[in-house]
């Protein structure tokens, strides 16, 4: 009886993990890719607030940070934490800048592979086009309003940091509404994008980190 119960429990968990509740599998991933590409081609800018919730379930602790981000085509990004600390990451003209406690440090993306990787990853998350990133194995699901992409890193080194990334993309505009970065089953970070504005005019000076 115990074995049957355990098998049932494991099978249920596997099902729950493999297919999120309320979502069905997208069979034609090529069409989905095309759809997201088409949205991406129309995207000029994004302005959005974000709420980041770092959950350590094994410690019963959630750390909430809030901020704002700006993206402007092609590769300009400002990711700014306002609460409970101030910290800004900026990407502009191949330069990666970090402002922390009033000090600005600038890194050349092209000369530093680690920053190039981080640069590409942040931009892909912001634009919602991680789907085209072949460093990840992808499974796609959908409900009425949202695509849910389950991205698993192929690279063993990357897997040490992130077990899985869940990306929720609005069907209406093709842009990410939520990202969940799972380090383990009990340790993950949810970033929710709220008050999103697409294709508003953004001054280039927003991306100057001073």
């Amino acid at each position, binding site marked *: 009886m115990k074995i049957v119960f355990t098998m049932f429990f494991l099978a249920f968990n596997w099902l729950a993990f493999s297919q999120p509740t309320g979502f069905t599998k997208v069979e034609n991933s090529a069409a989905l890719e095309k759809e997201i590409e088409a949205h991406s081609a129309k995207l000029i800018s994004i302005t959005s607030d974000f709420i*980041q919730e*770092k959950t*350590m379930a094994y*410690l019963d*602790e959630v*750390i909430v*940070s809030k901020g704002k981000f700006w993206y402007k085509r092609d590769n300009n990004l400002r990711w700014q*934490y306002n609460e*409970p*600390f101030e*910290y800004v990451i900026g990407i502009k003209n191949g330069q990666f800048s*970090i402002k*922390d*406690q009033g000090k600005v*440090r600038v890194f050349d993306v092209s000369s530093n592979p680690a920053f190039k990787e981080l640069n590409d990853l942040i931009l892909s998350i912001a634009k919602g086009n991680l789907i085209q990133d072949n460093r990840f194995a992808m499974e796609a699901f959908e409900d009425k309003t949202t695509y849910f992409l389950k991205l698993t890193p192929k690279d063993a080194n990357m897997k*040490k*940091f*992130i077990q899985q990334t869940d990306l929720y993309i609005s069907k209406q505009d093709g842009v990410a509404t939520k990202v969940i*970065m799972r*380090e383990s089953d009990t*340790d993950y*970070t949810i970033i929710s994008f709220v008050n999103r504005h697409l294709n508003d005019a953004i001054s280039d000076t927003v991306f100057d980190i001073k």
Partner: protein
Amino acid sequence: MRFLTLCLILSSFFFSDTFATNPARLDEKVEMKTVLGVAYNSMLYKTSISFREYAFSGLVLFKKQEMDSSTHIVFMSEFGMTMLDIKYKNDQFEVVSAKEFFSHPKLLQVIFDDFRILLQDLNKIEKVRFSTTCKEKTNKLKFRHFSDTFIYLYQSDFLVKQAKWRKNMLRVVKVQFERNAAGQPQTMNFTHRGVSLVVNMELLNLKE
């Protein structure tokens, strides 16, 4: 030689006006207190580390676990990525999880030594010495533990304002505390003798 001994004895009287080696006085003076000096369930610090020309930043969480009477110290990036989780329990540190860079034994030992200054369970200490300096009426708690020397300076109610840990002449760590109106350690700055390693921590949030 006798003159030198006499000088040392006299100078110790000059710098301290009380002296004790009675363990009972630890309970009496720092009853139910910790070096951090406040009751908390969790404390979150913004942390910056500079080592030579390198600079790192992130968050450090102190989290008490009633279940097993442990305290976790979790290092994470601003993006939320857990880099290191260590646990202080039964007067020992152990690694819960560590990303590659943090799993270096020498680095872990530095981290254990630094955080022992803050988390040392004072009930595990058998012999302590108390003294009070004339200058600014600062109290001093000193003890040896695991062959290392620990010194804590405080003015009242065991709210530590400076701590020093010494393994030998070359390995010395100092921590400066600044406390807010509630007595919580608002900033904690670590310096390491002979190594250009500086750690600055600033309190963001405390949950009771």
